[in-house]
């Protein structure tokens, strides 16, 4: 199923109204799951109405991690924004950096040099692997507990992620919040021999992805917990703006890397993994297939990194040096591990020649994914709710910003 360009809006039953039709005599328990709960992936709060252990209604509340990043960006210069947005999707910081800088570059009319494009694409794919490793690992924690088999899965995933953090540390000096993208290119060039080390790591990881696949497919308990749980309807998902692995696990063949190429993705053939089941297990399997595909993309691109400069602009000495034209606005989006991560930016209007945006809006895929919860949870048990939240893999830093 391809993404239709014009979405008709079928009238979906509003899950928030369902309780009105529920037997008023029934003794429902309102349970606040979160914001302090080990399995809500940060500070998501879901208000659950329970009949015994069965969820009748689920209402997600967001905003417990709101840090005013978008407002803060209005006070910062374009160059200063990168390290701040790093902290949005704190599981894949490279993606956040690229998303905002892509928007600034589109408005500025600057095209990063090919070497920077290749570096960005390689970093993004390696980051996607790291992010999916966390996703699979924390999903294991949700199903198996922090003191139990789940923790074993989690630490196996972290074992591979550690190799990736080492790679990034070598390039940027940071293990987590890299601040390596900048307007018009990159700040740090690849060290000598990095490509060989990166390829060794990627080979090792793609050789180990079968461990996770076997853990999911050959484990009867995991299958029992995840198969047929929370089937996402593709039309509903598209209507809510859900993208990424969730949509692809529901049979919608849509990936911005292939369908709207950016960076160096135009130079490479991308196999987009799609599954049609739409359940929690399918989402995890799509992520694992993406890990393998990302490793392939990154290794192939590493062979052809062109020589040349890594920035289209002169190295920025003053952080106010980059300015956009007054009143211009634009949107750029990339495919983050969780879906379409976009940035909408409006350049300064009143203050002529200001070096900070008038308004900056981040379109985060997790926010849209969370709006699926009221439809997914009812009918499942409390134990399934943690599996569902884990399978849609929300990052609250990105939801609340």
């Amino acid at each position: 199923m391809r993404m239709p360009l014009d979405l008709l809006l079928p009238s979906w039953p509003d899950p928030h109204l369902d309780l009105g039709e529920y037997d008023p005599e029934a003794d429902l328990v309102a349970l606040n799951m979160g914001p302090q709960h080990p399995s809500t992936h940060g500070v998501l709060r879901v208000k659950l109405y329970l009949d015994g252990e069965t969820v009748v209604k689920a209402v997600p509340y967001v905003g417990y991690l709101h840090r005013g990043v978008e407002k803060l960006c209005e006070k910062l210069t374009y160059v200063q924004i990168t390290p701040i947005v790093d902290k949005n999707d704190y599981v894949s910081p490279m993606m956040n950096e690229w998303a905002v800088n892509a928007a600034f570059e589109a408005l500025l009319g600057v095209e990063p040099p090919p070497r920077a494009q290749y570096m960005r694409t390689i970093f993004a794919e390696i980051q996607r692997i790291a992010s999916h490793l966390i996703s699979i690992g924390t999903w294991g924690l949700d199903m198996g507990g922090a003191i139990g088999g789940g923790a074993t899965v989690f630490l196996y995933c972290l074992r591979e992620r550690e190799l990736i953090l080492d790679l990034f540390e070598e390039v940027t000096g940071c293990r987590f919040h890299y601040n390596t993208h900048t307007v018009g290119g990159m700040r740090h060039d690849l060290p000598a021999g990095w490509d060989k080390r990166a390829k060794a790591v990627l080979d090792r990881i793609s050789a180990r992805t079968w461990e996770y696949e076997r853990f999911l497919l050959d484990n009867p308990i995991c299958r029992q917990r995840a198969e047929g749980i929370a089937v996402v309807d593709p039309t509903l998902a598209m209507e809510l703006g859900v993208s990424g692995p969730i949509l692809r696990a529901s049979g919608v063949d849509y990936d911005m890397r292939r369908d709207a190429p950016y960076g160096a993705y135009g130079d490479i053939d991308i196999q987009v993994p799609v599954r049609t089941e739409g359940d929690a297990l399918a989402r995890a399997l799509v992520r694992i297939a993406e890990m393998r595909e990302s490793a392939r993309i990154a290794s192939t691109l590493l062979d052809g990194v062109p020589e040349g400069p890594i920035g289209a602009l002169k190295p920025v000495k003053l952080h106010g040096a980059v300015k956009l034209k007054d009143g211009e606005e634009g949107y750029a989006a990339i495919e983050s591990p969780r879906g379409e991560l976009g940035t909408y930016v409006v350049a300064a209007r009143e203050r002529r020649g200001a070096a900070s945006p008038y308004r900056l809006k981040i379109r985060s895929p997790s926010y849209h994914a969370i709006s699926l919860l009221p439809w997914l949870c009812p009918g499942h048990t409390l134990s399934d709710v943690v599996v569902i939240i884990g399978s849609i893999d929300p990052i609250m830093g990105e939801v609340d910003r």
Partner: protein
Amino acid sequence: MNGAPPVAASGLLFNSAPLHALVLGLVVVSLCMGVAAWSIWYERKFAARMQNRPGPTEVGPWGLLQPIADGLKMLQKEDIVPAAVDRPLFELAPLLVVVASLGTLAVIPWGDGLVIADLHIGVLFALALSSLMLLPVWMAGWASNNKYALLGGMRAIAQGVSYEIPLLLAATVPIVLAGSFRLGDIVEAQAGLRWFALWPPGPGAVAFVLFFMASLAEANRIPFDIPEAESELVAGVTVEYTGMKFGMFYLAEYLHTLIASAIAATLFLGGWDMGPLGAGVHWMVLKTLVLFAVIFWIRWSWLRLRADQLMALSWRWLVPLGLVLVMASATWVVLA
């Protein structure tokens, strides 16, 4: 202990049965508490090795003094009692849970005659006390006045009721084969390595696995640890407990696991007897610890089942299987 048979005269430590019970009781209880405490260190090391990490290393050599540090930390914690709890029940539950799990130790034979109270209904006493643990768990869940704790308590009751039956049915197999409820008699019936887990071929082995599974469920271990299910219910019944009260639940869980291993070793693995290799306390301890380690192994490699799947597993498969096993073993006894 009305109706209890006289303690086997040969095994008495002293000339009087009460003194024997008192001294042996003190020794066994303190040893088991110590083993339960150190098993936390053992489990942490075990899990760490499974997960590519070193585990505790800082306190003492190889982190061996970690349990003492853990215990001291627990004792120092502020004992917070929320305002809305049902105070008497809330305070009583952690005590009862430890007492119920320690009570089972009374009938476990560690060696020939080396048993605190040699009851002629030893198996029933042990199983009854281990299912008595449900009561304080439910008390804690109810008294905490917390929805997570309440859900945990309800799950504990549902799970306990479901798994009691396969546990009893599996325990019936060695009882039928040995023709006695006394744990000592059951061990003697397995003399010469004719362990009930191996002999008669078929029902014995299946009953052993069934008993082991049901014990895991009784002791709330993964994959059957849904009453505390920390990823769903935060900490289940123990969610409102702090400090040493939480520590007592924790200790009781380890004690229960240890005792379940000891009972399984007695019923199915020949207890203190090791055939041609002789007999003695060390064999019983070794078998118990091996089973204990298997429980850790399972815990750190499996995920958790869902509550309804857990019930379905018990009622749909384990209970019928248990009934078949009892009939098979009875047929074996009649024919052989």
